């Protein structure tokens, strides 16, 4: 299930049985509100991988998605460094070797300025 931070899986798993799945990483800025360690999780789309993440970390869901399950307006998602196309459906495909980064958009900061 890839529940270990990348590289942190037990050696036997890593060497013999590890199945490569996408890595999900979060901005450092979210960590003071809700701990979001990087995790390797199965999923062929951004939505599938994030759903797996939120099954393990339910509180994080409302920090990233709004009431309707859409990406919050001022959050951004990158797959291997490229911003996703489908912000509403999160249907962008992810390869097993992909890294998904959730970061704050630089827009939207005025409520705290």
């Amino acid at each position, binding site marked *: 299930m890839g529940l270990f931070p990348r590289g942190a899986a037990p050696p036997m798993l890593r060497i013999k049985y590890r199945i490569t799945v996408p890595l999900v990483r979060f901005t450092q800025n979210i960590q003071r509100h809700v701990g979001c360690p990087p995790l390797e999780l199965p999923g062929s789309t951004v939505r599938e991988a994030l759903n797996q993440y939120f099954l393990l970390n339910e509180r994080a869901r*409302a*920090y*990233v998605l709004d*009431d*309707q*399950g859409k990406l919050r307006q001022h959050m951004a998602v990158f797959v291997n460094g490229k911003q996703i196309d489908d912000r509403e459906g999160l249907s962008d495909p992810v390869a097993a070797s992909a890294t998904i980064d959730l970061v*704050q958009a630089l827009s*939207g*900061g005025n409520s*705290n300025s």
Partner: protein
Amino acid sequence: MSQRCHVATRKGLFTLERGRSGWSIARASFCGDNCTLVMHDPRENTLLATLNHGHFGVKMHRSADGGATWKEIASPKYPEKPADYVPKAPLEGKSADWSLKLVWSLAPGGANEPGVIWCGTLPGGLFRSEDGGDSWSLNRPLWDDPLREQWFGGGADHPGIHSICVDPRDPDHVIIGISCGGVWITRDGGHSWSVGGPGMRAEFMPPERQFDPNAQDPHMLAQCRANPDALWVQHHNGIFRSLDAAASWAEIEGVKPSAFGFAVAAHPADPETAWFVPAVKDEKRYPAEGRVVVNRTRDGGKTFEILTRGLPQEHAYDLVYRHALDVDETGESLVFGSTTGSVWISEDSGDSWQTLSSHLPPVYAVRFEKAID
């Protein structure tokens, strides 16, 4: 007389306490975070604070120890919008977002309803918790009313419920204020709602809509605890009063220096007394002539006293938002805070004021801790 007060600001929540030498800032919580609202629940002696994290959304926290420690609780969540949803009476052809933008009002339920809290939000949903904020449910009768879909934003991009008055005689009787959607009433705990009666006037609407109760922009609604049918509204273009629980409204005219403002506080025992903080009208929004004043009426709006003792009277450009004025349960202590970070307290019903700070972050809300709400 209240001994504690909480000040919600753009950069945190500040607790004021009255010691032997007077009022001072005793604690800062959520420093750096945008704290948009605070509520004290006298039934449980708990505090609720609302934070708007911008990127990460609106979150709510509760404290059971006077603000020493906080725990994140549930935030109101709009239900999933049906894929085939078609608004019955959309404004400008659009339906509102079904997504929490801001928690704009919080009010404890009745004294005999422990755990019940009402919560008004942008974009116009009213939520109710029956477990002190651990869970919330959207009030569907109001949300599903076709007239609700005609509400529109006043200042903000979305309509919102900013005022909730729970009748101390009957907690099923709740009156709410909406910018912009007028005043709405339930007498059965939220199972059914009706828009308030006539009498308000909306200068900003075309002539044929100016007296539409559902198109009004009450900036704030305040209720006299001892006579809950007596209500005051600081409206976008005036001051209005009702003596029949919002069945009808009368405009208070000729108020100097201005009938514009956001905040109003109703005396808890005397329905003839209320306080306002006036400002130059909507396109300017600063104290007339740079003088911060509080307007007090003690005769139901026939006359007003302009209270200035202890308040800055030159080059002061403090605007006071709708939740940034409060009165305690005795009617003697008042507090208000401004967009430029000033906080003033009075212990003589507004006759004189002392400055608590002039350099806090912009103040969104002030709330005394009261023995009764």
